[in-house]
């Protein structure tokens, strides 16, 4: 555990010393601030608009950061040959992988937390309140980016950063569109296509579960605007995310176990 945490701390340190991350964070904050302007334009709906935009900005940039950090994680170590220092040390290869993931989760926690604080600040300045449901929404976004980082980590454990990034973003987009695609499947003509799409959807996480700013999820209406997001729902979605992430990590470990570091 000490070894995993050493790698995690190093991963965290690397991430927060990366300038690109600050650029992304800057844009996120700018977008959240910009919600004030947009809110002014909407009559009587200021708070609602700020809540929606703030959450959307937080989510979007968290995902971008997760993809960026996630795909660079392992690849950079390979490219800069720093694995040549780490792997010969008395650690297991899977410890390295988990260290990387935990370091990323830590980084994302700090960043998502920071964006949430800015968002809540803006909200309060505009006369809104930080309702519990908003905290639930932010938490679910955090679980979502954890899932995304495991996916990024998985791809980057055997593929280039560009391809990994592309695949991860694809998984994110398809994952978010899960209900729409599933609705579309019965209307597909070709049986093979149907089966294929179903199989793909089976592998891709249903990320829509984590996006609670007004959506029909599994026949249940969840929205931050009513208090419909129950604790049970949050718990179930979290469990789903952790189990999915765990399975992806297991696959990454299998890929990693016998790979050559050249």
């Amino acid at each position: 555990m000490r070894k995993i945490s050493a790698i995690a701390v190093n991963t965290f340190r690397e991430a927060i010393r990366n300038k690109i991350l600050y650029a992304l964070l800057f844009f996120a904050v700018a977008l959240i601030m910009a919600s004030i302007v947009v809110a002014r334009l909407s009559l009587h709906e200021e708070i609602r608009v700020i809540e929606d935009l703030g959450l959307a900005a937080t989510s979007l940039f968290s995902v971008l950061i997760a993809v960026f950090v996630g795909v660079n994680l392992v690849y950079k170590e390979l490219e800069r040959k720093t694995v040549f220092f780490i792997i010969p040390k008395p650690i297991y290869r899977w410890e390295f992988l988990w260290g990387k993931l935990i370091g990323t989760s830590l980084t994302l926690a700090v960043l998502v937390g920071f964006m949430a604080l800015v968002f809540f600040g803006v909200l309060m300045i505009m006369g809104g309140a930080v309702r519990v449901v908003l905290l639930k929404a932010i938490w679910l976004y955090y679980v979502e980016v954890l899932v995304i980082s495991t996916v990024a980590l998985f791809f980057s454990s055997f593929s280039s950063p560009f391809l990994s990034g592309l695949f991860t973003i694809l998984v994110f987009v398809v994952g978010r569109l899960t209900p729409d695609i599933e609705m579309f499947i019965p209307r597909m003509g070709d049986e093979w296509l149907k089966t294929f799409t179903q199989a793909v959807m089976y592998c891709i996480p249903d990320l829509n579960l984590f996006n609670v700013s007004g959506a029909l999820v599994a026949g249940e209406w969840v929205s931050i605007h009513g208090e419909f997001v129950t604790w049970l729902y949050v718990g179930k979605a979290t469990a789903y995310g952790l189990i999915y992430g765990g399975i992806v990590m297991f696959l990454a470990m299998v890929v990693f176990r016998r790979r050559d570091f050249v």
Partner: protein
Amino acid sequence: MISVTPAQKSEKEGSENIINVNNLHKTFVTGFLPYGRVSRVLWKTWPRGAKVLSNRVEAVKGLSFSVRRGEIFGLLGPNGAGKTTTLKIMMGLIFQDKGEIQLFGHKPGSLQAKKRTGFLPENPYFYDYLRAEEFLSLVAALTGIPRRERKKRIHEMLKRVGLEEAVDRPLRKYSKGMLQRIGLAQALLCDPLLVVLDEPLSGLDPVGRKEIRDIIRGLKKEGKTVLFSSHILSDVEMLCDRVAIMSKGSLRHIGSLDELLKDDSGTMEMVLNGKKEVLDELLEKWEGSGERIGEKARFITESAEEKDRLLKKALEKGLSLESLAPRRSSLEEIFMSKTGTIDEKRSGESQSKKKDEKEE
């Protein structure tokens, strides 16, 4: 110096051979099918298709050798001989196709083997955003050095490799020589019984090379086993107890340096100094080989008798002896013949290069 931990002291290693390499094979696959296992199956089932889709490089072909406890062992060979590949398999970074390696009787990559081994990769890169101290703390944590000992050990180690002043500088601002030294520091930090170094002396200036050589000699004095690779002969000459000469993935020669040089042990190189005319006269008369170098003359004598005769003559004529040394370039020649690169021009070149290195 660093104290040996009780665990390491009480350890029973059993055999005298620290490393056993047995019939090792490794083929790299590149091209469209970089994934070893997939392409290996393809090469077996459909070689013609596989040829189009991928390329194979046989980096190591049936290599066997052993390294004994307490010796400095040199793995010598020209670029592309397969040295790095062999060491990477040893460190559990890549996997062999056939054959096996044992470190302390354990598989490469096992914690048992890794615990006792320190490794310096070739051309080391680092986490350039870290400071020396941060990097070594990471290494300390990974090698399981207790927290309370870490600071002390790190500082001892930085002192030992001569980096005390650069502790606070980020590694990205380090020179090549400093990187090599921090690389050595991370390999030695956990006080390993076996130290494996890939080209530890290449790319350094003469002073840096000497410092690293001294550290390696110090390791032997502490009773550690050192295996290092090099394509530079003089390093091996100055440091190693035994060498293995590799070329094109296989072993060409293995043995102690004395064994290797036995045939040529009588060859000496004598440099004389004195009046120009007298030197010229002697050069003309001397039946063996000799040449003018500036104000001096260098003679090669093939036997002890010849050496004595020349020396006597020189002293009679009032010349003074500048230096007398065994002519060690024979290792170079052996190397060339073993690696199958006998080429007059090249061997001449590398001899003069070797001289440069010797002049440090």
